[in-house]
């Protein structure tokens, strides 16, 4: 019994030591996969004055009506939202070409490379340190920042919106695209692959 406890303790110590070293090594931007010990990755802060959602008179997207559970957004938030039609319209807006409207894809590398909204900037909330420089190159001067993730029960876009607020971006320019990638892909809208 005592021998088993000793073995358990040794294995736990060895595992912890390797995990600490490996996590420190992964702080290198070239490797990725680093987790901060003290960062609350799931912190959700409510704003004192929630802004109303943007409403459009356009008909709702019906291309995914046969899979309503996939496009319905289950995460509570207080950010203003943007409809699929408005996001699609922004794609052709000249301001988008001038980076005055930007799309922020809050999904991970693998998902982003498989496909994203054309021109979108990737910014994964959980590894923000790797993306913040690129984000701050465009976000402060943008008139509209459309943030999306997978839709459904994906909370990454809401967490990304909070990150933008913490980076000093004005709440009025941040728009959450609730349908996210699932709705975008299902609608047959243009997509871009790779980084």
């Amino acid at each position: 019994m005592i021998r088993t406890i000793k073995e358990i303790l040794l294995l736990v110590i060895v595992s912890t030591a390797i995990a600490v070293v490996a996590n420190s090594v992964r702080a290198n931007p070239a490797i990725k996969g680093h987790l901060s010990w003290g960062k609350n990755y799931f912190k959700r802060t409510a704003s004192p004055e929630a802004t109303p959602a943007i409403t459009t008179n356009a008909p709702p997207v019906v291309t995914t009506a046969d899979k309503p559970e996939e496009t319905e957004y289950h995460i509570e938030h207080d950010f203003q939202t943007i409809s699929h039609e408005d996001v699609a319209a922004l794609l052709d807006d000249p301001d988008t070409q001038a980076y005055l409207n930007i799309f922020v894809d809050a999904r991970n590398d693998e998902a982003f490379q498989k496909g994203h909204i054309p021109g979108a900037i990737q910014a994964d909330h959980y590894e923000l340190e790797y993306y913040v420089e690129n984000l701050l190159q465009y976000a402060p001067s943008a008139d509209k920042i459309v943030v999306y993730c997978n839709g459904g029960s994906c909370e990454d876009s809401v967490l990304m919106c909070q990150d933008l607020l913490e980076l000093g971006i004005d709440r009025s320019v941040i728009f959450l695209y609730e349908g996210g990638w699932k709705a975008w892909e299902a609608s047959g809208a243009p997509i871009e692959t790779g980084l």
Partner: protein
Amino acid sequence: MIAWFDQKRLSLASVIRVYLGGYFIYTGIYKVLGPVSFLKAIHLYNLLPETPPYFLNATAIILPWMEIICGIALLLGWYVRGAATIIALMFCAFTPAIFLRSLGVMHEQGISFFTVEFDCGCGTGAEIIWIKLCKNMALFSLACITALSKSRYFAIEGLMCKRAGACPLNDSTSPNPDKDNPAIDPTT
């Protein structure tokens, strides 16, 4: 005959040990490669508090490596009992958690328990949960068998005790393993 049966039993226990070791090395590497996915998965169980975040983050950072180290220990036959006990304890913690979460998903989505499917963060992707629970029970049993087994076939522990000349266990390194262990020596 008894000795033959015991030898087969001990060989089977070694096969189980090696299988468990390989399985945990695989799932551990899967989690180490995607620490954020694992962090999100364990967060969904609500087992650990969000604040302070140290518990949740430390679990996501350390647990995958613990699986790998325990897997390597089992594969090599080194600190077998400790490694198998850690793995059995992990199953004790996570299997009920998976079950409780599956009940939550079932309630939320209004679907049958047998159709509940999600990524439990176990390193095997999204799975039908009742099947996953059965697999976990089976793996838990295998971990218990390994923890209780005296088999040290193809194990570093077997080699080490043989070299020290103090093998309390039956092992493959002995020319006649059953002679070393009166408990299963048919001549005694």
